[in-house]
């Protein structure tokens, strides 16, 4: 991979936007990429919109995804998808909760990790790096639920892919 991958993660305070971007940036870092992750927080705890930019590749300059250059938009909230869609490039991919059967998550708060699981099928990041990043980002008692959500997201994305591919 010799270009910068731009990911935006959007939601409102309390949905785990920043946690998800922590996991993604750690996973990319552990895979050996240069990484920059940036967001505006401060208001996030008061339920306002939060959007985190994660960029990785051989060399990342600006910490912010330029408008219209996001490759992926993870939206934990439908409104946030509408608000941020304009920052996605034309062929950019939206990752939204519709792909996930939330009933299958052992903890519904782990939806952020399920979306990362979906994203993971598009990225060149080894599974071991994802696992290390999840472990580094959560207290031990939360590892299982987050690993399960990640795996569930990944499974859903793979099933979706196969469903679409010609028989």
């Amino acid at each position: 991979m010799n270009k910068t991958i731009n990911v935006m993660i959007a939601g409102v305070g309390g949905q785990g936007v920043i946690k998800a971007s922590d996991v993604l940036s750690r996973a990319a870092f552990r895979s050996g990429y240069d990484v920059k992750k940036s967001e505006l927080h401060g208001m996030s705890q008061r339920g306002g919109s939060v959007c985190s930019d994660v960029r990785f590749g051989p060399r990342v300059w600006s910490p912010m995804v330029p408008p219209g250059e996001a490759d992926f938009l993870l939206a934990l909230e439908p409104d946030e998808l509408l608000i941020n869609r304009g920052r996605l490039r034309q062929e950019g991919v939206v990752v939204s909760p519709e792909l996930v059967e939330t009933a299958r998550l052992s903890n519904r708060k782990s939806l952020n990790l399920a979306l990362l699981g979906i994203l993971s099928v598009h990225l060149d990041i080894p599974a071991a790096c994802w696992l290390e990043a999840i472990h580094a980002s959560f207290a031990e008692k939360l590892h299982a639920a987050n690993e399960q959500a990640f795996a569930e997201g990944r499974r859903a994305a793979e099933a979706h892919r196969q469903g679409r591919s010609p028989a």
Partner: protein
Amino acid sequence: MTSSDRQLLSGNGAIALAAIHAGVALGTGYPGTPSTEILEEFSRRGGKAQWAPNEKVALEVGIGVAYGGARALITMKHVGLNVAADPLFSVAYTGVVGALVIVSADDPGMASSQNEQDNRRYAVAAGVPMLEPADPQEAYDYTFAAIEISERWGLPVLLRLTTRVCHTQAPVQPRTSFSTAPEPHFAHDLKGRNLIPPNARPAHRRLRHKLAEIEEWSETTPLNQALPGNGQAQLGLITSGVSYLHAREAEPGASFLKLGLTHPLPLKKIRQFVRGVKRCVVIEENDPCLADAIRAAGMAVESKEDLFRLGELNVDRVRRILACDHSPEPARPAGKPPELCEGCSHRVVFQALHDLDCIVAGDIGCYALGVLPPYSAMDCCVCMGSSIGIGLGLRHVLPRAEARRVVSVIGDSTFVHSGITGLVEMIYNPPPSGHVVILLDNSTTAMTGHQEHPGTGRTLNHQPASKVVYEDLARALGLPEVRVIALGRDSSEFAQLLRSSLAAEKLVLIVARRPCVLAAAHIREYEKRAAPPAAIST
């Protein structure tokens, strides 16, 4: 993990790590987005870190540390430096023995601030060197550089960050070896540090002499780098801080003069760079500080249009600056505004202020959200501690019928920061209709992420400490009416108290108390930890 491993760190985290590696003896400051995590992280990594009541006190403590020959790190957001400006200007004259590094975390775009002042102006005004890192690696490296400059020239050094430097995470390669910090010691220097006019005059001369030396040094230090572009030397960009990263992405082929030390400026180096390119543009966030200084030195450089002075820069805006495109920019998506949390005790207070149609002089903190619907119950919010003075001023001049509706609302941390002198003013110069101050005591500095302060009775790392008791303080000052209420879910009891306080036309302090709903569980935990073990009954 050894110290040589690369780590993924925020700019704030990188400064904390550098402070540990450099042997900083004391870190102190006042919480303020985007600077807050520096001291928390410094403490978490084993450094001695403290929250001061405000930035002025923090800097004064830091001056003492540096007079004692040790290394001090003082952190604050940009507006905090306004509070600390008084000691800053004078310590530039007295100089220091150890290191005095002052972090100013600016907030272009006002993600979480009341203004977007450019604190590069302070470096020039106070006559202190300023470093501007662009990313976490530089935040780490420049912390060492700031200490080295501070110790070499005996001057305070400003380390200016911006929100995108503080809160960007990126890989950081720490150093593998560190020089040992000097042993603290005291040496008298009566003439050097007592700024009575006969001492201050030579002190100013000394400061200018030091700055001239640093300017000479700035011409050769690797902190300022000329980076040749591809080919024809057509376009040259002069830039600093995070603007460099946006510009580098927007114009990878251009030549760059990347300034890490932005005061004093290496004017010879800049002149050489300007001569070597066909078109030279200064790319900087906030005020045109670099462009003004370079133009004042007689060099023809392009600067941005004034519209780019507002808000943060990004890659797209740099492209617009370079294309001289001044067309209206696409509006940023509004997003969902923040609001007072479900179950927040401030809701009760603002409901009553709304219902009683009060004229509300507000202050800085979560409760500034009381301005938003459905309460719309805050008439002004200017700076830390201003609610009391502004409320008093309104009371002094408004017609009686309006004056008696004026209320000042201030949070607990903000009150300790700079509300106490307002209370003294209220007692000393009382308005004819009296005044009502509501102190919202939620037992934490909530807005910045639940930091302790002198009124919580706990230190930065949540250990027991002496506690400022507001009602005792107010009574000791001679305030005639001090009323304390434990806030419930319902606003009627509070409304009743407020109504009677307003009607009394006296000087009244209402301490409205209930822990922040987000912090309550943590606070209980800290209290439990601090409580002496229960006696075993026999």
